[in-house]
């Protein structure tokens, strides 16, 4: 199954991946409509700077996901075939247990919607939006090593 990797040296920290992520997960799907909204769509990925490098941080879809164990509402399941943690929004109560236990700080709370923001690998598309959005090819979409 495919996973997101990052060639850190190539990452400029331009946040194009964040924009593409937010846009792809928005209702309007249009940048100018979205940025003028009161509640713009939020990215499920954040680029963080550390010791001279930029690191895009998002859900890694861990094989033994702590968030799935912690979910007290049955909203999270691990799909072995897809290699993904699936989030069922209709079951989520916004208790933030998943945020509390994520070892990568990769799940962020959206306080307004009371839903956690996490990467879904752009599930219905051939590849995640952040991949083609990256101007330097730092975001790599490939089979898991």
């Amino acid at each position, binding site marked *: 199954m495919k*996973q*997101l*990797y*990052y*060639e*850190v040296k190539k990452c400029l920290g331009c946040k194009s991946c964040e924009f593409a992520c937010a846009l792809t997960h928005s209702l309007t799907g249009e940048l100018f409509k979205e940025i003028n909204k009161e509640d713009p769509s939020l990215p499920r990925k*954040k680029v*963080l*700077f*550390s*010791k001279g*490098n930029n*690191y895009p*941080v998002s859900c*890694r879809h861990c094989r033994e996901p*702590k968030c799935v*164990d*912690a979910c*007290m*509402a*049955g909203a999270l399941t691990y799909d072995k075939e897809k290699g993904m943690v699936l989030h069922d929004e209709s*079951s989520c*109560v*916004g*208790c*933030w*247990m998943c*945020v*509390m*236990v*994520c*070892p*990568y*700080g*990769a*799940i*962020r*709370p959206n*306080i307004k919607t*009371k839903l956690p923001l996490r990467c879904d690998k752009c599930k219905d598309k051939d590849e995640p939006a952040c991949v083609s959005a990256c101007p330097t090819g730092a975001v*790599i979409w490939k089979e898991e*090593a």
Partner: protein
Amino acid sequence: MKQLVVIGNSAAGISAVEAIRKVDKTSKIIVISDEDYPSYYRCLISYYLAGQVREEKLLYRSESFYKENNIELRLNRKVMRVEPKRNRIILEDKSQLSYDSLLIATGASPKFPHLAGIKKRNVFGFRTIKDVKEIEKILPVAKNACILGGGLIGLKAAYALKKRNIEVKLIVKSKQVLSQMLDYKAAGFVQKKIEENGIELIFGQDAVEIIGDGELKAIKLDSGKVIGCSLVIVAKGVSPNTDLVKDTPINVREGIIANEFLQTNIPNIYTAGDVCEGFDLVLNAPSVNALWPIAVEQGRVAGQNMTGQGLKYQGSLGMNSLEFFGLAVVSLGIFKIKEDDPNFEEIKFLDEKQNIYKKLILKDNYLVGAVLVGDIRNSGVFLRLIRERINISSLKDKLLNENFGYPEIMDLVNQKENLYV
């Protein structure tokens, strides 16, 4: 054929049988519960009462789960006594059941204070689906409720009742809500939200009597004040359900004492979940840390060890997260220290306008606790720094920065990084 018996059908019990069935398809497994309801997400009962979660969403494992995994489920059966010497348990109807290996995952029950009138009708605990269904029944005729206790359960009950248009008063003995997970400052933010949303808080007073002839009429406080109410919820903490091991050689303090394998002092008896007194990583001492995610974790390890895998449980710590009227709060490990205690160091961030308060507690350059209000990003990273006992002397001034996150601790954690190439 081996017979494995699990007492308890919630997070720890289910997690254990799943772990057992992963490697052992043949042993007979019997799960016993004193509740007359299939396994459910206990923490959702307040959301159910609030009308935000439908009943079918409460189901934790369906009936087919037990069939598919060849597990015998016995509901509505209470275990009265464990007899370790004879490797058997005695049930309420005097029947016996023998085991080769036993897991005690009996959970906890609400503590009811010794008050005059506490046994009256319409005085409830807030722990089971049964409690909530009974509360629901009287809602059409109930107008006002008093909740005893300002902990998380009391707050959740208050929230649910408020959502059902019941007038709610929360009676809190101490000076603040959530005194088991937040400092005074952090609690202030939560209290503001509670009061803004129309729930009345009464501090520094405790109930002394529940008044009414048969029917509940009012509650009397130690200040002499009498508050009329048609519903009382007692939320003064829980105590582990250890009665079944009373007068047995099984060691009990607050909960049933577990070693690092989640084994009691009797080798073929294990314990997990809210009844289990395991090792606390932060306190460096035994402690009961009753929380859904911990029960799942412990249940799994206990289950694995019941199949002879000999896995060590690294220990747990007190923690919790909550969302209250749009305010997110996380508490990890030590959340309060004595003023000017030279052994600890605090790092704080405060933005009253934005309702953001963050406090980290360090001891000898190790993170030992955190309180995060309004901005809970990175709480999992902080949890990791605590759990993995990572020396953070090089990070101290960065921990509460806007840009802080996993990349800053990447070199310090015991894990090979393969995503960043």
